[in-house]
């Protein structure tokens, strides 16, 4: 079983490494992502928001909906964990009635 997994995963790794040679270089100004979207975001940040950190501007303003959803996900996850962990918990002032 272990050899089967390796035999499946190693060609996949080789394929991914081979394909990654075609990706644009890191920070390449001619990469597609840097050609039409990034200049606009830089311009909007400089003109309308006037803060130095473009990442924060994009995260909280341009993609505000996204960050709202992200915060809600964190909150909901915390709430779900709380509900699961409190299921077997004892009431505040009674004795040790826990099954563990």
């Amino acid at each position: 079983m272990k050899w089967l997994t390796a035999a499946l995963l190693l060609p996949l790794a080789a394929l991914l490494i081979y394909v990654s040679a075609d990706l644009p270089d890191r920070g390449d100004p001619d990469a597609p992502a840097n050609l039409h979207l990034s200049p606009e975001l830089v311009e909007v940040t400089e003109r309308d928001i006037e803060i130095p950190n473009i990442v924060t501007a994009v995260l909280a303003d341009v993609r505000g909906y996204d960050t709202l959803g992200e915060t809600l996900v964190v909150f909901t996850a915390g709430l779900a964990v709380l509900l699961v962990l409190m299921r077997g918990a004892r009431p505040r002032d009674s004795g040790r009635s826990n099954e563990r």
Partner: protein
Amino acid sequence: MVWELELALFGLLVVSAIVALQLRDLIAAVAALSVYSFMAAALLAMMGAVDVAFTEAALGAGITGVLFIGAISLMHRRSVD
């Protein structure tokens, strides 16, 4: 000079990930996972994504270790497979 450092960080990243998978003691695995997170944060910082590196260092290497150990203490310490 930069790419040698990055290569070393990548090597440590892969090694710590494999170590975290192989360990039977889950608390030691959490420690290895923290090392993994820290290497990832260092790599992200070298790539220029400082905000992401910040989040990874604070959440991945800081909080999740404590939360994982808290979760492990609620169950068995050794992994069985």
